[in-house]
């Protein structure tokens, strides 16, 4: 064992939550140990990364090749629950920057009603904090990430403008505008953590149309904040180092975190406060491995994702230009609430996506000249809509430990069981009906809804350590402190009591900044 240094803050996970927290703490003069299971990617080589992505069938090990099977294995019983595998390692990245390395950069705030779902809609649970409490931190998160946005009356209230001008609706989006207007659907341009102009030392978007890699660096990823923390000289970053156990003393305070590097060097890291920000799955797993915070059997439960329900078809006489930039800019929250909201959960509409006729070689049995003809006749004439759907908290949808399978250190691996409840299925069915109506109104007569598959999920891992003032109903309190402990905190998507139907990254960032304030205030 080595490492007698004592830090103000020991953080597990150098992704969105851990990176922002480390930057904020070091900015205010605190010492930080930042533990990251993955490595550090060489960002000078993003073009090679892009080329790798483009030649690899979109397979996840190649986009950001982080996966070490012996470290990252898991087991999965989701097929018994929802009929499809949950491909965990496709939905996350281990490395400095975490899963923010491969996100699309879309940022949304939860709606004020999301924080009061039980009170307003009789489903899910209320958050112990309100939208108003989190709002100032949403604003700070906007500026930390460099969000490009345009305020719109459909969106939640905000007290500060965006740091960068928003991206306007694209020519493809505008095809849908008259349809939306006819049906009374309010649409808005999405906000992105992608620079519409140079910001924070990063380029403006250069339209590489490869956001998952972003060769220009215009899209925010949390490695920027990790670098900022390191730049203060107050942050020690331990890469390729896995947190294996949290040691609690008799009074319920954390004494140290036991870590081990990939080359089996063991350390004990000690601090005043400890924050687990290791992504939803690994945060729960570490608490379970350490027997921390699980007195009411809540750790790992209420695991939630956002299932996408998508449909599309041909729109005669209209031309789309797919693939030019790589993202679409129009969304709607018109079905997020609505008259039937007590029957189903939130639905966010996303316009528009395109299929690629070349993908239909097998489906239509066309190849050679026939495929070239098929491409000419169909490319740019097909359009689709996606609905991001809210999943209700469900104790049976959970992450647990699988003692029959071990990782490279001999620890039980996470066992996934993503499960839908009746409300989730109703929400997905309602989303399908909404899309059929919209597509029909637009003039699409051959609309087809895509079946749920392993690729239908948004990579939004939520729940497992949920926030509740009641220790019997949650793992952390309103300040993200693990119930029953004095100096152990969890932050990230894992603490969400409900997930809404919007991208969670900005909320994760806001919660992290709020935790930084709390820690530094209480410490003072």
């Amino acid at each position, binding site marked *: 064992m080595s490492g007698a240094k004592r830090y103000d803050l020991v953080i597990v996970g150098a992704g969105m939550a851990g990176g922002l927290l480390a930057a904020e703490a070091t900015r205010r003069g605190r010492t930080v140990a930042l533990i990251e299971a993955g490595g550090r990617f060489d960002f000078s080589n993003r073009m090679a990364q*892009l080329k790798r992505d483009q030649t*690899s069938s979109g397979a996840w090990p190649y986009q950001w090749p982080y996966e070490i099977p012996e470290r990252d294995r898991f087991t999965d019983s989701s097929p018994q629950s929802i009929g499809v595998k949950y491909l965990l390692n496709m939905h996350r990245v281990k490395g400095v920057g975490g899963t923010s390395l491969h996100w699309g950069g879309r940022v949304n705030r939860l709606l004020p009603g999301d924080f009061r779902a039980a009170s307003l809609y009789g489903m899910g649970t209320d958050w112990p904090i309100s939208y108003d409490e989190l709002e100032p931190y949403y604003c700070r998160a906007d500026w930390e990430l460099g969000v490009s946005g345009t305020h719109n009356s459909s969106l939640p209230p905000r007290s500060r403008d965006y740091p960068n001008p928003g991206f*306007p609706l694209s*020519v493809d989006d505008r095809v849908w505008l008259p349809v939306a207007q006819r049906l009374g659907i309010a649409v808005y341009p999405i906000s992105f953590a992608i620079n519409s102009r140079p*910001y924070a030392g990063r380029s403006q978007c250069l339209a590489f149309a490869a956001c998952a890699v972003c060769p220009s660096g215009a899209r925010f990823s949390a490695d920027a904040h990790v670098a900022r923390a390191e730049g203060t000289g107050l942050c020690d970053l331990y890469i390729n180092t896995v947190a294996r156990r949290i040691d609690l003393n008799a009074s319920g305070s954390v004494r140290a975190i036991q870590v081990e590097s990939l080359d089996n060097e063991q350390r004990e890291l000690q601090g005043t406060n400890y924050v687990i920000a290791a992504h939803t799955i690994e945060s729960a797993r570490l608490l379970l491995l350490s027997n921390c915070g699980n007195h009411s059997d809540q750790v790992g439960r209420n695991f939630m994702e956002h299932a996408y329900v998508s449909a599309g078809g041909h729109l005669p006489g209209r031309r789309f*230009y797919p693939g030019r930039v790589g993202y679409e800019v129009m969304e709607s929250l018109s079905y997020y609430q609505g008259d039937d909201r007590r029957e189903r959960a939130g639905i966010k509409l996303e316009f528009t996506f395109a299929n690629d006729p070349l993908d239909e070689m097998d489906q239509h049995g066309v190849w*050679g000249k026939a495929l*070239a003809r098929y491409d000419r006749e169909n490319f*740019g004439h097909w359009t689709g809509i996606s609905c991001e759907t809210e999943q209700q908290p469900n104790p049976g949808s959970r992450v647990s430990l699988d003692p029959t399978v071990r990782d490279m250190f001999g620890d039980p691996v996470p066992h996934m069981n993503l499960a839908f409840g009746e409300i989730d299925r109703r929400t997905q069915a309602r989303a399908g009906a909404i899309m059929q109506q919209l597509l029909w109104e637009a003039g699409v007569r051959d609309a087809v809804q895509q079946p749920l598959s392993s690729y239908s999920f948004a990579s939004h891992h939520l729940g497992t350590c949920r926030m509740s003032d009641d220790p019997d109903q949650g793992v952390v309190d309103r300040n993200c402190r693990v119930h029953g402990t004095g100096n152990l905190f969890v932050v990230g998507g894992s603490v969400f009591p409900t997930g809404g139907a919007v991208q969670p990254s900005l909320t994760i960032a806001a919660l992290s900044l709020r935790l930084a304030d709390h820690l530094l205030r209480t410490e003072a």
Partner: protein
Amino acid sequence: MDENQSKLLSRRRLIVAGGVGAMALTALGLGSLRARQSLGQITDAVSGITVDAKLTVVAFIGALNGRELSQWDVTDLLDRLNYRLSYDAGFIDECAVLAQHLENFARARGGASFRACNEAQKDSIVHRIMTIDPTSLASKVLRRFSKGEHDYYRIRWSTIYQLSWIYKQSGVAWRARGYTRWAGIPGNWREILAPGAPYP
């Protein structure tokens, strides 16, 4: 000019320089490739597959997608194929096996090689491969005993899919659709505000 603009321009210069460098390297590579045409059976030191075999696979990608490939197209696809092979050793064998079967099919149709086949012969070979049914009972039984059947299964189940992806992402596919810029080539995001070019 502020610092950010300066950085942006520097980045653009870097990208342009990188592009020019890549073109130069490609040209050098092609020169070297031409020199090696007569030595086509020599195994490529980097990827462990012959240059002939890779060119056969590239020709197959063209035939599979109904495209007559220009020299620019061959260079683009070969570059992408080489890149894929450089980090995926398993795919080297898949491509080598595919190339071998393509040559066998070509000879069975009276051609000297797949690349030397006329359009009708190539179409016939593509049809032969694409009508392999890896899900049939016969295929499931036979591939346990027959290497050839196992090869067909892998070609149809995996190799075709991988090659289709490489084509779909390539400049060849996008140029055929009238695009002058595609994923990986920087530009101005404001172009999304106006219609693009029509399909040629």
